[in-house]
């Protein structure tokens, strides 16, 4: 099935935006404007954008730390994201939480991330459970990694979703590493999707660097969930193209592996598709770049002009 041009163009915008925002963050970190940790998501754009686009406006997603694309697709403004990175009072967490943590906003159907992986799986099972109990045709989607798959919670949550036949889509972003730990130290199986059989749910393997493939697989799972067909586990095979976080030069990753995956860059592939279908040319790309740079300049200016939280508010906000 050929995807609609509008969709591809939207996807392209968000993938470019995610990458540019990622680069901007790296830049700001180098300038010491972002302090502490910083996570890059380069290589994950197809997954986070495609899965995000597969959801409807009333659906809910719990992205993890490499899913900038999902946040953007669901409408989280780069201003709020950069302000978050810079610890400003206008950031999503008002300066309280760090980098991509705590970027939740239920009005956008986004659940804030906590470090303790894979919390997203558990909390999204609950959101899906709520949808099911209410009989609402809504879907809840979580993201987790290959390392996160070793955590007991991943098992509990997928099992829970299956027992209650919940409208949940679980996206496993298998980027082959968890920090420095390769897959072989994480599991003794070829495909995480094969674990779906342990729960009696469909398991799907998809090329995580192919926007169209991810989009189609997630749409199918979302539709299935919405129609009452229960949860799906989708494994997206990809590669983490930067270190675990900005301090990590990932010397432990074989160069050849990175080079190989560089040839499969999800953004380049989508652009090739767009060009092949006559939806993109050099001018359009340049215009897009310029637009995104403007947007990010604006976001950065907003963030930098935003005040830090007042020290006197340090005790605020713990209780509702």
């Amino acid at each position: 099935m050929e995807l609609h041009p509008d969709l591809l163009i939207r996807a392209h915008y968000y993938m470019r935006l995610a990458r540019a925002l990622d680069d901007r963050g790296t830049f700001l970190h180098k300038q010491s404007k972002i302090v502490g940790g910083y996570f890059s998501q380069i290589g994950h754009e197809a997954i986070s954008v495609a899965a995000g686009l597969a959801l409807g406006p009333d659906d809910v997603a719990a992205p993890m730390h490499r899913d900038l694309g999902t946040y953007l697709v669901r409408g989280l403004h780069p201003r709020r994201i950069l302000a978050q990175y810079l610890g400003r009072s206008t950031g999503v967490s008002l300066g309280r939480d760090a980098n991509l943590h705590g970027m939740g906003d239920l009005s956008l159907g986004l659940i804030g991330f906590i470090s303790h992986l894979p919390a997203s799986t558990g909390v999204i099972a609950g959101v899906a459970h709520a949808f099911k109990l209410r009989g609402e045709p809504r879907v809840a989607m979580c993201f987790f990694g290959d390392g996160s798959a070793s955590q007991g919670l991943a098992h509990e949550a997928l099992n829970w979703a299956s027992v209650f036949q919940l409208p949940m889509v679980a996206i496993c972003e298998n980027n082959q590493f968890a920090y420095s730990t390769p897959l072989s130290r994480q599991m003794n199986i070829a495909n995480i999707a094969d674990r779906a059989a342990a729960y009696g749910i469909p398991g799907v393997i998809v090329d995580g660097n192919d926007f169209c493939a991810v989009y189609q697989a997630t749409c199918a799972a979302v539709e299935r969930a919405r129609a009452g067909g229960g949860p799906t586990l989708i494994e997206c095979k990809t590669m983490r193209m930067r270190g675990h976080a900005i301090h990590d030069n990932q010397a432990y990753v074989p160069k050849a592996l990175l080079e190989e995956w560089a040839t499969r860059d999800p953004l380049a592939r989508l652009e090739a598709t767009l060009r092949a279908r006559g939806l993109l040319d050099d001018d359009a790309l340049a215009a897009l770049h310029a637009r995104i740079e403007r947007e990010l300049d604006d976001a950065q200016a907003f963030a930098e002009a935003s005040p830090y939280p007042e020290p006197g508010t340090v005790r605020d906000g713990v209780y509702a």
Partner: protein
Amino acid sequence: MTWDEGLHRGAQVVADIPATGRELTYLEAIRDALRFELRRDPNVLLMGEDIGIYGGAFKVTQGLIEEFGEARVIDTPMAELAMIYAAIGMSFQGFRPVVEMQFADFISTGFDAIVQFAATNHYRWGQPVPITIRAPGAGGLRAGPFHSQSNEAWFVHTPGLKVVAPATPADARGLLLSAIRDPNPVIYYETKYLYRSLKGPVPEDDVTVPIGEAALRRAGEELSIIAYGAMVGEALAVANQLDAEGHSVEVLDLRTLKPLDEAAILATARRTGKVLIVHEANRTCGVGAEVAALIAAGAFEHLDGPITRVAGPDTPVPYSPPLEDAHRPAAPAILEAARDLLAY
């Protein structure tokens, strides 16, 4: 045992329970609160292991699945971590889940969901987590190290949570209503020992007990005993005994452990100048330590004696009856400590 008479709060006598004439056990009061809330608010639901058809390990939820159906009284897989996470997720969609831990001891299995997610969420992105976790705790029932724990201090230490521990049927009901309606995650410690052994007047109407308010169970001049849960009964027994001996002893029931009612704690300490704190939980870094620290800072000039704690020794709760009896603070040990303080 219906020692829950002359209900006081703070320095003043609080309004008496409406004289409906209804007496319930502590356990019935909990069930009554659950039923009341399930009827009142369609967003309230219950989750837990064996709480449906079986009615719960202690039969607290008995009859509720029959009345409210399995969409609102949910028997879950045996997975505390997913259970609490699921409750959090449900709460994001407007539900008010009440999660039963089969025993308070198993709350450690769902620990991450409570202390990392639920406790921090409102702080981090402003979204409240209105869940209640019922934790049947404490000992005295020959249930051994894994079915007798009083582990509330873990949560009292953790910002973002509220923790309550009712000592009377009326408070069991009133605090559970408040817990369910509270927009924050509340750990509700119910004392198994009191389930059937304690009966008392319980209102029928929408009478809540506010979270954060201690209750003065007995006013006195010479000594304050500060306790919660089953230890309130022990403290009252001791106070009565000392009363008979001509002493005047005050008993403060904390009721809420987080946030502590600092004003009531300081008021009683200032009034009597001598403080005895009693709890079943392990002594070190227990709630008693915090109460003592508050008083040592805030009522220093009023103190006429060392702040004394009678608490569970720092061991697991033993099974064998002579050991458990030696472990659990009860009237004799409290009495001895109280006499020492009075004589100080």
